């Protein structure tokens, strides 16, 4: 019998809620069948469930625990993650509580040797980075899930076995009152780094495990420092190693430091060792006598691994279950949000019978290549932060030393933050459009560019769980043939909206679902387009086709391609 931890976890800043365990199906006479079962109510499982609900797909989320995650874990969320969280309705809560920031600093021998400021563009709603402890994010997502009639979260339900059939999977689930079985068309395995589903299917991750291990400690302390990334290389108290600091809400500070090579995690997490090292770091920063209190500590290793395929018959992997990425560059959770946002519309369209044979497999193609690209980039950061061999260490140390006087080596401190992946090679991109004939604007596969439309009003706020055609026009109506094509797409069941970007101060464009006024030409110039041109945008806000002059036939072709029918 599964016995999840029933006492609220201990935390200085977060009140854990223990959700009641679901036992309703134990002893039921029949095995129920669901369209989608998500395994894991971490950030990725819950976001997947909420995103599916936007497409009208109901799902069950099975979560082994009865409360959200222990400790702050992922604390830095990128702008793209915020945009995805906006789509599922929790971004306001995250930004209401989170700390926005956009600067990072690297120090060596008490000298600032590199500073990077990510631009806060006026067209973006969210800051480049927002710091918030993972339990808050999970709590916001869990509350949104509980309030959503299409999502059923079953706390205290642990998956223990899985059998694949040709058109469904059967899960065995253990609860505090006994076990039961559940059938589902699709399993989304979002059960984290130690994925039980991955183990049950005997799948291996490809890639490298680096030796570098980091202690992560959260302390409560009142420090007069800005919300910026602080990295200290080779500090006197921890020679050769790297220390990172981040501010979290509630006067909590994250201190990450690399373990000396010969030390075990158990040794490193001993109270005296933690205390001594945190004091040494604080003393180095000139905060010798500032009182502090420990909240949580753990050891994290720098790994860069991925499955080579995310879809295995009826099981689809997302988030940490699919890949393990180094924390440098905040790639853990931030990569997972992009996974599930890429997956969900494809899965929803598949369940609704709207997808061609290439749509769902494109999830694996797009996201495995994203993971490999991230692993490649993250490898560079990891080799600099935690050099894996004597050779790497020597060159890194030479760079540190040179960086005090030599400008040219300083860009090597760049920590390559998680960013939206560009699916330039996707089979869903239209090969016969005008993509190559654009001089500016986001290319096929790239993320749409946000636009500030007014006070507290941005383009991304207007986007829903459907295709959007951004149609640039100075006419008072959408051409008949184009509109007829859009009607045909809609009557096939594909949700589709026309957003007319008006260039002539028109107050109405007949046939358009929404109107965005662009008399200044700002949007047109950012998108490199003139009237009669258009961008076709997937439900995950990535572009799949663009034209200087759009015709009905071209739209028809592009939709067939993006639905994976070619």
């Amino acid at each position: 019998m599964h016995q999840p931890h029933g006492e609220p976890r201990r935390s200085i800043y977060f009140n854990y809620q223990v959700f009641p365990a679901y036992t309703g199906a134990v002893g039921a006479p029949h095995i129920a069948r669901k369209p989608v079962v998500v395994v894991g109510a971490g950030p990725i499982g819950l976001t997947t469930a909420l995103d599916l609900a936007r497409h009208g797909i109901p799902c069950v989320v099975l979560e082994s625990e009865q409360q959200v995650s222990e400790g702050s874990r992922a604390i830095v969320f990128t702008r793209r993650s915020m945009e995805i969280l906006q789509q599922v309705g929790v971004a306001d809560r995250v930004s209401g509580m989170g700390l926005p920031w956009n600067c990072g600093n690297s120090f060596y021998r008490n000298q600032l040797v590199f500073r990077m400021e990510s631009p806060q563009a006026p067209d973006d709603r969210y800051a480049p980075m927002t710091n918030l402890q993972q339990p808050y994010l999970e709590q916001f997502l869990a509350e949104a899930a509980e309030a959503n009639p299409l999502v059923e979260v079953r706390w205290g339900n642990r998956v223990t076995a899985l059998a694949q059939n040709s058109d469904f999977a059967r899960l065995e689930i253990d609860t505090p009152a006994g076990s039961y079985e559940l059938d589902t068309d699709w399993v989304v395995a979002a059960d984290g780094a130690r994925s039980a589903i991955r183990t049950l299917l005997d799948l291996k991750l490809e890639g490298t495990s680096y030796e570098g291990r980091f202690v992560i400690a959260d302390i409560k302390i009142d420090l007069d420092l800005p919300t910026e990334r602080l990295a200290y290389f080779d500090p006197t108290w921890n020679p050769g190693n790297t220390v990172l600091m981040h501010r979290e809400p509630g006067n909590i500070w994250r201190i990450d430091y690399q373990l000396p090579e010969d030390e075990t995690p158990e040794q490193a997490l001993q109270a005296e060792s933690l205390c001594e090292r945190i004091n040494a770091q604080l003393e180095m920063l000139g905060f010798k006598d500032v009182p502090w209190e420990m909240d949580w500590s753990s050891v994290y290793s720098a790994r860069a691994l991925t499955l080579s395929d995310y879809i295995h018959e009826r099981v689809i992997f997302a988030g940490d279950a699919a890949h393990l990425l180094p924390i440098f560059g905040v790639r853990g959770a931030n990569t997972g949000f992009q996974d599930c946002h890429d997956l969900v519309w494809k899965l929803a369209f598949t369940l609704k019978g709207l997808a061609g044979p290439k749509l769902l497999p494109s999830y694996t193609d797009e996201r495995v290549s994203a993971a490999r690209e991230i692993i490649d980039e993250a490898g560079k950061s990891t080799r600099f932060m935690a050099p894996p061999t004597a050779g790497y260490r020597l060159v890194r140390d030479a760079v540190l030393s040179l960086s005090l006087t030599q400008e040219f080596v300083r860009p090597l401190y760049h920590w390559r933050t998680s960013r939206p992946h560009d699916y330039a090679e996707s089979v869903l991109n239209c090969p016969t459009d005008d993509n190559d004939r654009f001089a500016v604007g986001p290319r096929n596969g790239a993320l749409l560019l946000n636009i500030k439309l007014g006070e507290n009003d941005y383009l991304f706020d207007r986007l829903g769980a459907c295709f959007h055609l951004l149609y640039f026009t100075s006419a008072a109506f959408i051409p008949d043939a184009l509109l007829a094509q859009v009607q045909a797409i809609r009557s096939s069941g594909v949700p589709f909206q026309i957003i007319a970007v008006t260039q002539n101060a028109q107050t109405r464009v007949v046939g358009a679902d929404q109107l965005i006024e662009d008399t200044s030409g700002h949007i047109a110039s950012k998108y490199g387009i003139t009237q009669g041109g258009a961008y076709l945008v997937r439900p995950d806000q990535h572009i799949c086709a663009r034209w200087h002059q759009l015709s009905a036939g071209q739209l028809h072709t592009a939709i067939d391609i993006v639905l994976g029918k070619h």
Partner: protein
Amino acid sequence: MNTMTVHDLEVVYDVLADALDKASAAKAELFLVKLALLSAQALGSAQTFNELAQSALQDL
């Protein structure tokens, strides 16, 4: 590629030896790697640097 005169090469020889002694045995490696990076920057070519590294790996 520019070639050094024998006289120049002799100067480099002495400069390198003196600098290594100045750096001390404990810091000799670090010094050499710094020097290699500075030389690579002056050289301005990753490809040439790679060829030089391969040459230096011979007959160790």
